[in-house]
């Protein structure tokens, strides 16, 4: 059944055992995003460490897809440069809008490839994207981004 492509083992594992699900002690900025149609919520916080690598904290409540997506995101973008985080985020957004037609790249997306089945369920795409939208918004508020990195390099 199609449900097994939606709820892949990796997604269920992240849902039941979320990675990195803590808030930062000193976030530079945070973003609270809600899905007003269902009430899913996620708060994502960001800061840079002394090497210019991303630190990400989050908490939230919602369906398995939104919460597993936050867990995968935390795993993929913590400790990388804002530029590399942006590459992952763009690949994930593209995957979600692909209607299942894009072959996801595990080298870029890691466990994020498991969300390929979500793209076939239009009502769930917003769930999967919620934490990534929060990440983008938090980075913008913190002034973290590719432009800033280019400026400093």
């Amino acid at each position, binding site marked *: 059944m*199609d449900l097994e492509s939606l709820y892949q083992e990796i997604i269920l594992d992240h849902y039941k055992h979320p990675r990195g699900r803590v808030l930062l002690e000193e976030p530079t900025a945070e973003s609270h995003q809600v899905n007003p149609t269902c009430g899913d919520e996620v708060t994502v916080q960001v800061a840079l460490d002394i090497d210019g690598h991303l630190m990400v904290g989050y908490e939230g409540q919602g369906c*398995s897809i939104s919460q597993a997506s936050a867990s995968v995101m935390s795993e993929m973008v913590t400790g990388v440069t804002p530029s590399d985080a942006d590459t992952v985020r763009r690949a994930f957004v593209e995957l979600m809008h692909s209607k299942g037609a894009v072959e996801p790249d595990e080298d870029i997306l890691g466990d994020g490839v498991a969300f390929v089945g979500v793209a076939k369920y239009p009502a769930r795409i917003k769930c999967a994207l919620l934490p990534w939208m929060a990440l983008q918004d938090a980075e913008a508020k913190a002034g973290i981004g590719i432009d800033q990195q280019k400026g400093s390099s």
Partner: protein
Amino acid sequence: MVQPLDVARIRKDFPILQRTVRDDRPLVYLDSAATSQKPIAVLDAERAFYETSNAGVHRGAHQLAEEATEAYESSRAAIAGFVGAAAEDLVFTKNATESLNLAAYAFSNATAKAAFAADSVDPRFVLRPGDSIVVTQMEHHANLVPWQELCAKTGATLRWIGLTDEGRLDLGGIDSLIDDTTRVVSVVHQSNILGTINPIAELMDRARAVGALGIVDACQSVPHMPVDVASLGADVVAWSGHKMLGPTGLGLLWGRPEVLASMPPFITGGSMIETVFMEHSTYAAPPKRFEAGTPMVAQAVGLAAAVAYLQDLGMDAVEAHEHELTGYALDQLEQLPGVRVIGPLDNVDRGSAVSFVVDGLHPHDVGQFLDDKGVAVRVGHHCAWPTCRRYSVPATTRLSTYVYNDRDDIDIAIEGIVAAQKFFGV
């Protein structure tokens, strides 16, 4: 005794119920509180109107214009008759949300006008700081947000009647909540999320006792039980056509004639005027005063056909059918471990919207499993977010039935819930 509904026969009247979804599963439609499905008689009526009589109404001197006007106004009379009202007291709007906004804007428009020309408005619609508006904690956003906005524009204070753990209105402090400062009491007849049927007569009596206008959101009651709008004791009653087998795009607002006559218009422009000069205009009497622009003629014709269909079934029979199904759904859900109904558990003063939560499972995931079995339900906060907060749940899954549902539909939904619990290991 009322005759039980012949669901097998009724189902044949609904073309959409013959289709399959998700890998050829028969459609089990349990989302009628969101919108009902439409019988062929409604679809035929709309089509026949367009095929034979379509024209602008209340204008033109040709035969089609006459026929279209007759179709529109006789539909109004039929729909009004369904709720025991006179045609001239029934206003067509785009949906129930617009109906409630029409009522709320009567106050903000009158308040704005009063600042310049106090004599031109009925003082009952003029609000000022110190006034209060009373709603309940189980309102649909459509009967909450317009009143919040009205308070923000006028300085009035919003109050609300809280809820008991059992899903009923907490009427303990009602006399201090609805007091001499209260100008509007706007309450839902039957909750779209909890299923609770509220004691409207009692609330409207209290509103009248303090001189407040009483408004009722009847979206979930008019489709499911016999309702006589005048006997509710309200000044204004709002509901929609698409939840009662009719087309989308048509909302209803009934008002006591004396109240409608003193309400300023909401949307202005063509069709709602009496005379127009460059300096000023005067307005038509209700209901036309509230129907600016080209109206929803084919939709009105369709809703009149829906009303005829429901009258043929008999609203007593509809109510009895749903009461029985609701009792069955509550019994089945109560037997499931890890499932908790949000709303009254006793099938008394209770409608057919049954919300529940499953321990360890988000409603979105429950809904996905039900969808996989062909079962359409609503998941989320049902446009009643504060109600969800009251019961400390982010969202619920909601089953809601209508004339075309039977116990088999409930059984398939229960199977889906069990499958979801098994899959997620909760």
